[in-house]
């Protein structure tokens, strides 16, 4: 049982929680860019947090169900999802029946969305993980991005037998009262490579995301952050969210496909609770970096995880969503009605 890729924009890959235990050998962890949306999609299916899913970029994706019905869920940025002829909300759980098509394309905002299937995609484990790292040709489907004709095997589950698979997923944690434009940062480990004035400038300035954005790093542009004593350091470890400032004096935030070691000063780290929000920014969007202490970073992570853990309680009937928000679009009426008959 499985899904077949009908169309894949650049950047669609299989990701799980990431490749662990080999960082010391130079192995990139990979894993989802937005762990919050990735985990929510999995939890909506009662999967493990880290079950293998498809990460979809603004390039979009279209799949068709092969021989058996597949319960699936998706969650992420404000992508436009269509199931056959009906439009679906940006986060939902449905049953895809043999021959039916599901498509995602970029919407008003957001850079990544996740398509999870019950039980996870059953692609081969490479060094303990299914995560794709294209640069080292590892994981996923042949270590590469998905393309037309790929068969994505699905481990069989039990949800298909239940009648009420369809649901809209509420994501209240996306609307938590922190400004979308502020990204929280813990100082270190090389903040002493910058004067106090420069650290103050870093936290007082607005930075704009450039077009240099990929799974490895997001490059921002703003006022120069000058080094006090050069920018070459003896290489050391790199953690998720590290904000590296190299010779161009501009912040580079290291993301899922980062190398595990590197040689430029890191002024601070984006906290894990804000990594997903940062990942969902598009080029041209701006943010401020706001300093927090490590304890606040932990508290924010725990609060966010507790919200996400309630995903199964945040499922709402899909039908209400359709009548409330979509009937105004006359072109969709036929699709909606046929969905009701199912």
């Amino acid at each position, binding site marked *: 049982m499985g899904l077949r890729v009908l169309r894949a924009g650049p950047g669609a890959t299989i990701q799980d929680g990431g490749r662990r235990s080999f960082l010391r050998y130079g192995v990139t962890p990979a894993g989802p860019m937005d762990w919050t949306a990735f985990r929510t999609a999995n939890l909506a299916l009662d999967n493990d947090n880290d079950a293998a899913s498809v990460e979809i970029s603004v390039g979009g994706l279209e799949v068709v169900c092969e021989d058996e019905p597949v319960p699936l869920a998706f969650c992420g940025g404000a992508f436009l999802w269509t199931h056959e002829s009906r439009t679906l909300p940006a986060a939902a759980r449905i049953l895809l029946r043999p021959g039916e098509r599901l498509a995602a394309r970029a919407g008003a905002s957001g850079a990544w969305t996740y398509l999870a299937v019950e039980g996870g995609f059953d692609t081969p484990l490479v060094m303990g993980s299914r995560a794709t790292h294209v640069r080292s040709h590892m994981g996923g489907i042949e270590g590469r991005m998905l393309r037309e004709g790929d068969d994505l095997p699905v481990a069989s589950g039990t949800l298909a037998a239940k009648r009420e698979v369809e649901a809209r997923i509420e994501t209240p944690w996306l609307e938590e009262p922190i400004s979308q434009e502020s990204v929280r940062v813990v100082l270190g480990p*090389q903040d002493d490579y910058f004067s106090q004035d420069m650290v103050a400038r870093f936290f007082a300035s607005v930075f704009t995301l450039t077009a240099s954005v990929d799974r490895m790093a997001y490059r921002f542009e703003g006022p120069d952050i000058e080094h006090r004593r050069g920018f070459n350091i*003896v290489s050391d470890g790199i953690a998720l969210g590290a904000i590296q400032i190299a010779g161009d004096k501009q912040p580079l935030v290291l993301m899922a496909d980062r190398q595990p070691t590197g040689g430029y000063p890191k002024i601070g*780290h984006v906290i894990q609770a804000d990594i997903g929000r940062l990942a969902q920014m598009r080029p041209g969007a701006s943010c401020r970096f706001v300093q927090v202490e490590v304890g606040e970073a932990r508290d924010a992570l725990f609060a966010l995880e507790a919200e996400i853990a309630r995903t199964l309680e945040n499922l709402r009937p899909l039908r209400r969503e359709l009548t409330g928000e979509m009937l105004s679009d006359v072109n969709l009426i036929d699709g909606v009605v046929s969905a009701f008959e199912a």
Partner: protein
Amino acid sequence: MSEEPEPRYLIAGESALVVEFGQSIDPAIHDQVLALDAALAAANLEGVLETVPTYRSIMIHFDPRRLTTEALIEQVKRLESAPAIQRPKPQRWRIPVCYDPPLAEDLTEVATKLDLAPERVIALHVRALYRVYMYGFSPGFTFLGGLPGELGISRRTAPRPPAPAGSLMIAGGQALITSFAMPTGWYVIGRTPVRVFDLRRERPFLANIGDEIMFERIDAASFEALSRAAEAGDLVARTEG
């Protein structure tokens, strides 16, 4: 350990800690890194996920749900003050290298820039005893210290085209064995048939951090034969001691 300066504990977000023993590439500093790495492995602390030893520091990745930065620093201080845990005994690897053109694409350029005869560059490179300091760039990219000072060539200002996996490179006073082809600012002075990274092996990576490496010069015919053996799954490298 008492005469050594206190390590620095540097925060790298809420789920990683850097313990830094110095600022330079130095076997004594790297020994401290390896000793703490061994001590952490032996202590098996609740919440520690994995460690990344590098030249002069170690990054400890941990689960903030099970361990706080503050508690981890206390635990590491306790390990540091305990009777010294020895770094594990390194293995010494003998790795065959062919320095013949066209496998040593940049040898002439290096020799010219350093004002040495190409044979002298080879002699210096092949006679040195190297230490694996860390991995980086890509899976299996092996960074070596121990390059003779005479071979201290600066990195290129612009990258050269990708060289095949197994290339032996030098730059910035360091040596490197590659595992993937990628553009690089380093100089290619030889190639080994040994695969420092091979997923078909039970241990995909050849050397542990801290291991020693010696090179053995081979000719083009041996290189071809050993490459075929490596293709078939043979290690081709030997250990001693």
